[in-house]
């Protein structure tokens, strides 16, 4: 007693204020998010496990049973070292199904609200002594420090700010699944304070009381040795049972379940806690024996009652005593806050809401929030009541072990959830009730009265008479619990709901959720239906939250998406009101259709789960999964489109090629019904379903504004034993093939025309030769200049006809003509003049002006007849396109490697749709009967023979309308060999075609 009450109260108030300020700093964002979200903060927050027992109880145990105190730390460390085997599966379940407590987990797995209620009652009964222990240490420490006569009242005083903190951290928002970063950060701070205080006490013991490690070792081997012989060593059975109790506490104690599974920021953080939390516990445990030995060195009799508070004996300094008190306050407040939050949630979900389910007339969120606040307050003040009425008479070990032995009764059920799908509700309930009855009568009863179970032991168990009560009760209760659980589960029937839940929970089981159609057809109908249970506002918010989490649009009507939406809503409601109430609401208001619809396995969902868990497979399962992935990848990467429908027409697969072809991502359509697929796919698949044959050839469909020709093949997979049927459809894009086929037909027609033209040319050749001969004869038969001029013109025209017919034959034979023709140097201007002369012979276009601006000196290398043929064609087209009074300009210039000749008219131009096809045979802009469509193909053919190219601009550059045809021929190189031809321009033209 060396401190004033006011001083200690001020110290406690300062510490709690620091928590408030820290919480505010996190809330306001004054602390970096990177720091708050660091996995180390989560690991430290798990230090809530180190309750007042770790500060005081461990010291008491160490002074009584030596290293036996380590069981408290090693048990839970074992559980965390097995994080991947034990904790991750539970965390996965809690996260997936929004299970926030042990009662939620049990109620979900065993499909009974009464199971949740029972677990909640057991937890309440078990944890109240643990909470009483926290307040007792607080009261005892205050009494020890200040000599106060009313430690219970002082403890009650501290209950008020602790309750406010708990409400601030856990009941400010109505929606529990939202993570409480502030809570994590503040509990982590409390853990740091505990650790720092204990480490400091260890240092004080080692260097303040002893003169360092060597002095300690000397003392232990010398004067201290006698004192160590007074301790009672636990026998191996007791040690192992203690380890088991604390191992189970890692996931059964409500505060540990809450911090480990509900507040987990990420899987990574949990996995890191697998080693960092045991490290934290090691550091917490390390100073304990130092404190005990230092007290012994100072002459304190550690065998007397009050051994829990030996740390106060290390010094008479106010600040060192204050340090011990703050460590105890940090431990007690953290435990009280988290246990209160967890118990409030459990009580709300499994007692209050089960007794009075929510209705749609009230503001649900507000009601839940206030209920939670009332329950948090009730839990903390209920614990104080226990301390006041019962706890004062018992030591820390009695109260703490009562809690741990009670909670360990849930261990068989929890292990069965993870590893025994065959376990059922009846077995679990029978075992649990048996175990808890033994525990209540063996330990709780002895807390309330002086009665002891030892007095009731039958003679066959007389050998246990000398063992401690906690050990005997644990052995009998747990063994009876396990035995009855197994026996009853084996001999009774398991309901189908339980089997489904067991599959969802089991670590090894294959999850095969059923696929049933829902009565609701879209998210809007969900809102409407749920409004009857939750009220319109809450229903809208819950549906929108669930749809947003799943990234579903409100219009999504895929059966698969609706089932996922239903599952998500159930999970979210489970976080809000517990799984029992959530399941009732969802079953009642979002039911499956029962109009004879058959349930099938949701293969897509199964595959997604398998993908998520693939790193956990071993051995044969891993090999099989590898094979499955290989086959799936093969199908997805297949170079033709593939989709698979189940027997009900629900889409199961939509591979990459089909996604590319259709422009529809598989994630947006998988799970949709065949009829609900976007156009044209729904109709297309309906056609192949209705088709008597297994294929549909070259179906014309419009995709991305382009007509494509698709060929579909189908294969029916009949149902086999243990498997359901499906329809596989392969989709091939035959658009290219169709185009090639059309080209082939076209080419064949051209070839026919070519052959015809050759025949016609041959037939025309003879009369033309006759006409030419007759015209020649006219030279001899007449001296009339006009007749002679006419004869001359007839001869020229017959030569022209012969040349044209020859060209036609040449075109028909694929450009062989040039091979036998000798190229000569030709001046362009006379060529143009000759062509113009021929054009003038025709009567049409007499009012068109032709302007030959070609410089006289420009020459090209070529064949006169064929180049005149080109010019006549092009000038003729320009004339035909020109309006009356129009002008056609012919110009030429020399470029570096090219001679360029342009023909520009002012006519109506060429329609864009036909421009790319102008050089194809039989394409013409002229009226039927006026053009054959062979002119420009012939021009193109001749220009290419001259290694030139041709370009069409419409409207002509610098003009509002008209067309410019530009021909380019290689520039003659008289003294040097010809440079390699640059085909880029020609290629561009070809690609245009």
């Amino acid at each position: 007693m060396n401190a004033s009450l006011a001083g200690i109260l001020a110290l406690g108030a300062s510490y709690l204020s620091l928590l408030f300020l820290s919480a505010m700093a996190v809330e306001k964002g004054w602390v970096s998010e990177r720091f708050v979200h660091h996995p180390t903060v989560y690991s430290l927050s798990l230090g809530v496990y180190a309750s007042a027992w770790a500060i005081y109880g461990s010291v008491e145990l160490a002074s009584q049973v030596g290293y036996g105190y380590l069981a408290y730390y090693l048990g839970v460390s074992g559980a965390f070292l097995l994080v991947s085997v034990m904790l991750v599966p539970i965390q996965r379940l809690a996260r997936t199904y929004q299970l926030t407590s042990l009662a939620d987990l049990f109620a979900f797995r065993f499909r009974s609200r009464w199971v949740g209620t029972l677990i909640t009652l057991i937890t309440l009964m078990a944890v109240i002594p643990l909470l009483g222990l926290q307040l007792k240490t607080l009261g005892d420490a205050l009494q020890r420090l200040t000599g106060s006569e009313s430690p219970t009242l002082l403890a009650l005083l501290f209950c008020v700010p602790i309750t406010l903190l708990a409400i601030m951290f856990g009941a400010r928002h109505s929606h529990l699944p939202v993570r409480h970063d502030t809570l994590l950060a503040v509990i982590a701070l409390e853990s740091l304070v505990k650790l720092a205080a204990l480490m400091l006490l260890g240092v004080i013991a080692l260097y303040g009381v002893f003169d360092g490690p060597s002095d300690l070792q000397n003392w232990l081997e010398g004067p201290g040795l006698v004192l160590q012989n007074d301790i009672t060593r636990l026998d191996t059975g007791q040690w192992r049972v203690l380890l088991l109790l604390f191992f189970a506490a890692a996931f059964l104690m409500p505060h540990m379940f809450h911090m480990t599974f509900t507040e987990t920021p990420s899987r990574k953080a949990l996995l890191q806690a697998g080693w960092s939390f045991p490290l934290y516990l090691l550091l917490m445990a390390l100073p304990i024996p130092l404190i005990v030995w230092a007290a012994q060195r100072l002459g304190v009799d550690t065998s007397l009652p009050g051994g829990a508070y030996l740390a106060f004996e290390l010094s008479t300094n106010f600040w060192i005593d204050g340090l011990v008190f703050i460590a105890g306050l940090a431990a007690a407040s953290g435990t009280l806050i988290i246990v209160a939050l967890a118990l409030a949630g459990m009580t709300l979900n499994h007692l209050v809401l089960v007794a009075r389910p929510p209705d749609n007339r009230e503001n649900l969120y507000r009601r839940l929030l206030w209920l939670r606040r009332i329950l948090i307050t009730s839990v903390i003040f209920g614990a104080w009541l226990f301390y006041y009425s019962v706890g004062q008479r018992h030591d820390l070990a009695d109260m703490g072990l009562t809690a741990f032995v009670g909670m360990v009764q849930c261990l068989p059920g929890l292990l069965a959830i993870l590893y025994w799908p065959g376990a059922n509700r009846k077995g679990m309930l029978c075992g649990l009730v048996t175990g808890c009855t033994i525990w209540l009568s063996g330990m709780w009863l002895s807390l309330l009265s002086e009665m002891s179970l030892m007095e009731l032991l039958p003679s066959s168990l007389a050998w246990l008479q000398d063992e401690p009560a906690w050990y005997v009760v644990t052995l009998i209760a747990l063994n009876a619990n396990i035995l009855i659980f197994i026996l009853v589960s084996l001999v009774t029937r398991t309901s189908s709901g339980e089997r489904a839940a067991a599959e969802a929970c089991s670590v090894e089981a294959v999850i095969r959720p059923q696929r049933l159609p829902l009565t609701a057809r879209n998210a809007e109908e969900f809102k409407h239906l749920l409004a009857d249970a939750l009220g319109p506002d809450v229903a809208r918010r819950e549906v929108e939250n669930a749809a947003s989490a799943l990234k579903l649009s409100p219009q999504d009507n895929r059966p698969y998406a609706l089932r996922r939406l239903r599952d998500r809503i159930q999970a979210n409601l489970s976080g809000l009101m517990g799984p029992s109430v959530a399941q009732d609401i969802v079953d009642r208001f979002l039911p499956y259709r029962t109009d004879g619809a058959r349930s099938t396995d949701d293969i897509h969902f199964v595959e997604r789960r398998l993908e998520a868990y693939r790193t956990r497979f071993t051995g044969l399962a891993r090999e099989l999964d590898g094979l499955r992935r290989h086959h799936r990848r093969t199908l997805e990467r297949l170079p033709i489109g593939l989709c698979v429908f189940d027997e009900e027409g629900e889409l199961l697969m939509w591979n990459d090629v089909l996604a590319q072809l259709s422009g529809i991502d598989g994630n947006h359509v998988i799970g949709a019904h065949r009829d609900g697929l976007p156009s044209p796919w729904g109709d297309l698949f309906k056609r192949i379903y209705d088709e008597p044959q297994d294929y549909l050839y070259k179906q014309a469909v419009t995709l991305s504004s382009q007509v494509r020709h698709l060929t579909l093949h189908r294969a029916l997979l009949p149902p086999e034993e243990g498997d359901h049927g499906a329809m596989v459809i392969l989709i091939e894009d035959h658009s290219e093939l169709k185009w090639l086929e059309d080209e082939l037909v076209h080419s064949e027609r051209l070839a026919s025309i070519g052959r015809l033209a050759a025949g016609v040319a041959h037939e025309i050749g003879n009369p033309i030769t006759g006409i030419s001969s007759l015209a020649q004869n006219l030279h001899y038969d007449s001296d009339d200049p006009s007749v002679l001029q006419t004869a001359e013109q007839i001869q020229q025209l017959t030569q022209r006809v012969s040349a044209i017919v020859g060209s036609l034959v040449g075109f028909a034979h694929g450009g062989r003509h040039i091979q036998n023709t000798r190229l000569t140097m030709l001046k362009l201007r006379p060529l143009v003049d000759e062509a113009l002369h021929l054009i003038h012979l025709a009567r049409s276009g007499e009012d068109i002006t032709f302007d030959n601006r070609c410089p006289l000196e420009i020459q090209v290398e070529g064949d006169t007849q064929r180049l005149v043929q080109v010019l006549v064609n092009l000038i003729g087209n320009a004339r035909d396109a020109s309006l009356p009074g129009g002008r056609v300009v012919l110009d030429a210039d020399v470029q570096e490697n090219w001679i360029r000749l342009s023909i520009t008219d002012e006519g109506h131009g060429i329609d864009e749709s036909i421009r790319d096809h102008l050089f194809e045979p039989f394409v013409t802009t002229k009226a039927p009967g006026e053009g054959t469509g062979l002119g420009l193909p012939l021009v193109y053919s001749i220009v290419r023979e001259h290694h030139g190219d041709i370009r069409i601009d419409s409207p002509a550059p610098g003009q509002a309308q008209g067309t410019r045809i530009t021909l380019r021929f290689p520039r003659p190189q008289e003294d040097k060999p010809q440079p390699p031809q640059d085909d880029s321009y020609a290629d561009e033209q070809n690609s245009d075609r």
Partner: protein
Amino acid sequence: MYIYRIMLFLVFGGYLLSPVLMSGWGVPDIAWYRPFLIWGGLIALGVWLEQKRKLDER
């Protein structure tokens, strides 16, 4: 998954052999911090296995 089995084996093996830890209290020839060294070794193994798991699942 195999590394989880290693840890499972070690933890349950440790559980069975752990009573040996208690024998060090007040025994002159045994350093008082021996249980903490063994415990630290197990944590170091946990760190190493965690690194292995990260590589395995990468």
